[in-house]
Structure formats: structure tokens, C-alpha cells
């Protein structure tokens, strides 16, 4: 309806929108082509070291993946890490958002400051933490923790430590994102339900549970959706800190795919893994976005 006026004009032409989209579509083709090429490679045994041996092997790469013990570990890590990190980050993000939404002195400054981790490249954030987690004097973290009685943690050197380290770094970088979305949500909530609840004598906990959380649900789901998609694919933080180690403890599908393609030059297997990951991202985003639509609609009603 908003374009009725435009469409009335005869010289407008039906093809004008497509003409306008042409430059972007050309660039889009530049993206679709390598992707299609990748799909094709994933069905071949393309091995860069033996370029002559290029056969079409149908789904063998995909089937072969499931026979590799490392793949199931990487799959487990990818899913487990996503679930745990999103739960923790959304939980903490909600706490921070509620805190910064309250009328406390200096919250404007704190809000601006809180943004900083979001503003730097994730890989740079990872390097900063890597310095702090070092065992030498540059590694302030263990030194600081020793004051509250925590024994030195082997941050990046042990399997458990490495997983926790990645989680800490990832959370540090992305907490502001979640908090900002939720803060935006909190600011958009109507005032009436709270007034009504207060008249009815509801306590703070009850209002949080029965008013704030249900109304905030679409924002929580939206934040979770973005984080799920990014956590499933997380690569730069892991690569910069542990490269998937130690003992493959932090190897997720992205890292494993990278290893296959760029260390062993098995391009077919590498792409196949990326496609499996893509399927997971698409499936989870499909579910979460539907959920988001449904909650967003029910909240509006």
C-alpha cells in the first residue's frame, strides 16, 4: 500500500526494483557461487595434495565423518558449549540488564563502559585474556585470584581449564550485546501492569516472575537466537587461545573443519563438516525464530 503512488506512474516499470537490486545481486552471485562450489566439493574426495585424485563420491564424506571419533567429540562440544554458554550468558545478561535498568547512580557511565568489550575484535579480546591467563607475571589472573584463596588455575593448559577459559572470554565479549538487547526490552515495557500489581500488593519477586519475564520473553529469545547461531560457529576465540587443544578438548566443528581443510588439505571433508554445521545453525535458528514470532505476537496481544 505504501507504494501505490509509485506504482501508478506508468514509466515506473515493473523491472525497476530488480534493476535497483542488480549491483547487490551481482555481489550475491559472488557469494552463492563459492558456496555452491563448496557443496559440490563436499561430495568429492578433493585432497589438495593429490589434485589428480578428484572423484565424485556422493555422501561418503558425510558418512565418513560419523565414523571419526573426533567428530562425535567435536559435535558434542559444539552442542554442549552452545547450550551452556547461551544459558550462562543470557542469565548474566538479564542480571546486568536489570541492574542497569534500575535507578542507580552512575548507570549512564556504566552503560557506556559496559559496551567496550563489544567494541573490540573478538580475537583481540581473546589475546588480551590469553596474556592475563599466562603463567608468568603477565598473567595477572591467577595472582589476583590468589588473594581470594583460589589455587592457581591452569587456564589454557588443561582440558577443563581451556573450556572454561573459552567460555569466560566469549562471555566477556558478548555479555554487553545481550544486556543491551534486554535493556532495550526493559525500557520498552509498559508501566501499567506494574502499577496494577503494586495496587494488588505484589512483591518485587512476583513482579519479576509474572510481569517482567513474560513481557521480556521475546527479547530473551531474540538474544538467545543470535547467541546460539554465533556460539555454534565460534572459531576466532578458540583458534587464538587454544587452537582446539589441549588434547582436542576445545575442538568444535569449526575448528575441526579448519584442521581438515587447512592442515591436512582434505577440502572435501572440511567443507562437509562446515555444511553439517550449517544445517545445525539453520535448524536451530528456524526453531528459535518461530518461537520468537509466537512469543512476540502473544505479548502484543
Amino acid at each position, binding site marked *: 500500500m505504501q507504494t501505490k503512488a*509509485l506504482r501508478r506512474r506508468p514509466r515506473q516499470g515493473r523491472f525497476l526494483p530488480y534493476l535497483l537490486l542488480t*549491483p547487490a*545481486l551481482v555481489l550475491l552471485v*559472488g557469494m552463492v557461487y563459492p558456496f555452491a562450489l563448496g557443496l559440490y566439493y563436499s561430495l568429492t574426495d578433493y585432497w589438495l595434495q593429490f589434485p589428480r585424485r578428484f572423484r565424485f563420491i556422493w555422501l561418503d564424506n558425510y558418512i565418513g565423518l560419523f565414523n571419526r571419533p573426533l567428530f562425535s567429540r567435536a559435535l558434542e562440544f559444539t552442542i554442549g558449549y552452545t547450550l551452556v554458554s547461551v544459558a550462562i550468558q543470557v542469565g548474566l545478561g538479564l542480571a546486568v540488564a536489570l541492574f542497569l535498568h*534500575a535507578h542507580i547512580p552512575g548507570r549512564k557511565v556504566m552503560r557506556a563502559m559496559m559496551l567496550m568489550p563489544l567494541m573490540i575484535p573478538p580475537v583481540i579480546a581473546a589475546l588480551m585474556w590469553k596474556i592475563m591467563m599466562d603463567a608468568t607475571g603477565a598473567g595477572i589472573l591467577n595472582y589476583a585470584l590468589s588473594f581470594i584463596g583460589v589455587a592457581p588455575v591452569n587456564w589454557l593448559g588443561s582440558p577443563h581449564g581451556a573450556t572454561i577459559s573459552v567460555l569466560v572470554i566469549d562471555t566477556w565479549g558478548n555479555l554487553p550485546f545481550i544486556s543491551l538487547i534486554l535493556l532495550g526490552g526493559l525500557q520498552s515495557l509498559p508501566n501499567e501492569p506494574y*502499577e496494577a500489581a503494586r495496587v494488588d500488593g505484589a512483591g*518485587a519477586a512476583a513482579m519479576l516472575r509474572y510481569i517482567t519475564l513474560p513481557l521480556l520473553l521475546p527479547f530473551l529469545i531474540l538474544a538467545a537466537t543470535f547467541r546460539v547461531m554465533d556460539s555454534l560457529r565460534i572459531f576466532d576465540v578458540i583458534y587464538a587461545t587454544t587452537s582446539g587443544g589441549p588434547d582436542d578438548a576445545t575442538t568444535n566443528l569449526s575448528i575441526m573443519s579448519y584442521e581438515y581443510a587447512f592442515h591436512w588439505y582434505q577440502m572435501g571433508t572440511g567443507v562437509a563438516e562446515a555444511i553439517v554445521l550449517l544445517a545445525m545453525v539453520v535448524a536451530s535458528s528456524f526453531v528459535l525464530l518461530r518461537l520468537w514470532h509466537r512469543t512476540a505476537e502473544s505479548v502484543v496481544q
Partner: protein
Amino acid sequence: MTSLPLSQRHYAPRRRERSTTTVLPLSRRHYFRHAAVLVAAIILIVWTAFPFTWILITSLKNSADVISVPPTFIFKPTMDNYAALFFASHQGEYSTSRPDFPLFFVNSVIISTGAVALSVLASIPAAYALARFTFPLKNSLGFIFMSFRFVPFLAFVIPLYLLYQRVGLYNTHIGLILAYQLITLPFTIWMLRSFFMEVPLEIQEAAQIDGCSWLGILTRVILPLSMPGIAVTVILGFMFCWNAFNYPLMLAGRQTFPVTVGAIQFISYDQVLWGQMAAATIVSALPQLLLSLMVQKYIVRGLTMGAVR
């Protein structure tokens, strides 16, 4: 511990709120509440700012101070690490493992600027079409553009790597600018679309009555009115490019590494130069921290591609 949790504060209407916070805490309940707020604020501030502070301190230490155990807090600050990054490469104390860091910085600027310029130029007409026209395929096209934001980068980068090797785009600025379109184009299209849609339709209709063509509407109405939006899009797009690590890791070589990939090179030597690495991270993060001050209000909108305002 206290019967009135912090989280209740935002429920109260503003007027009452002010009165409770400005009144001096007389009761025990108030005292607890203020203490809790203070502790939470300190935790939040330390959590956010401490890494920056420590890295800044580390970058100002000489090579002995950096690794001394326990960490030193009182030391003679030195600019050696920064000097090593930017100037001398082989003068005793100034020696660095990455003499090419200034080049990396220039690379980042070239690639990010090129990628954003190309994306924005292609996105302006596309966003105009998506915001102001109806045509078949409109929604699916818009969705396809957005979906690229969420595809695992390896699905692109492996075939791109092979393709670039073949056609000679590997380790070139042009190749990287084209690859960065995967990062910027979905973003610029959706951001500009959301800004263009905010231009009131009445103004556009008035212009049409005055005889403006579609081109006139774009150049005389939509573009001037959404200039701030375009500026925000450019800045945020630039920041996302500056952040990029995955694509250049595989598609760039020694001559075209951006700072993100350059900074990580400090590790791969037998002796890790923490001081220089700290200086490198500070230098790499600085442009963005400065840019972010300008677009603070729009960051969430940018990160959600216009979904949350």
C-alpha cells in the same frame, strides 16, 4: 538478605524512585541495599575494565617487568613496545618479531574501507527497492541477503581459498574486499532498508506530486533524510570489517594481513612477546573504541541488523 531486592527498583514510577535514592540511607534495609548496589557496580566495572587496564599496563612495561613474578605494579613506563611495533625492527632493544605491523594496520584500513564502500554503494539502490517497492520475490530476496550473515564461514572460505588460488585473488586486497562482502553486504542492506523505511511516506508522496521520478525521490528525499543512518551504517560496517579475523586468516598472506591476523602472529614464535602483543592489541582496538563513541546508540540495532531499535 534484604527484603527489597535491587530488581524492584525499576518497577517504581520515576517520581518515587528519585525520592528513595536521594534520601540518605537511614534504615538497615537501605544500608544493605546501597551496599549491594555498590558491590554489584564494582564487580561490573572490574569485570569490564580490568582487562583493558591490565593490557595497557603490560604494554608499557619493558621485557623484564612483563614476566616478573609476582606482577609488578610500580615500574618505569616505557614506550619501547609501541616503538618496536611501529618503527625500528632491528635496533637492539627495539627488536620486534613483527616488523610489518604498520603494514597490517594499513591493510586493515584499505580492506575495511574498500569493503564498506562497495557494500554501501551496492546496498543503497537495493535497500531503496526493498524499502519502497513491492515486487514478487521481495521477501525471499531480502531473506536470502540476510541469511548470509549466519552461514558458517568455513562453508565459504574453503571454496573461496581454492578459487582465489586459481584466479590470483589470494593474498590481494581486492580478493579480501570481495570476501568481506559476506560480512558487510547483508548488514548494509538491512540497516539501510530499516533507515530508509523511517523516512515518512508523506514527504515522498509530496515529492512525487511535484514530479519527482524514482531517482529524484532517492537522491533528493531519501538519501538526504537518511544521511545520519547512512553514516551509522558506514561506521558500524567499518567496525565489523575491522573485527574480521576468519576470512583474512585463510585468504590473506603476509602482505595483506589485517591487524587482527597480525596480532596473533606474536604467539607463533618460541618466545612470546607479551609486551609487544599487548601493545598490538591496544593499537588494534583503538580505532574501534574511538568509532564506537560516535555510534553508541545504534550498536544494538547494528548487531541485530535492524531487528531491535
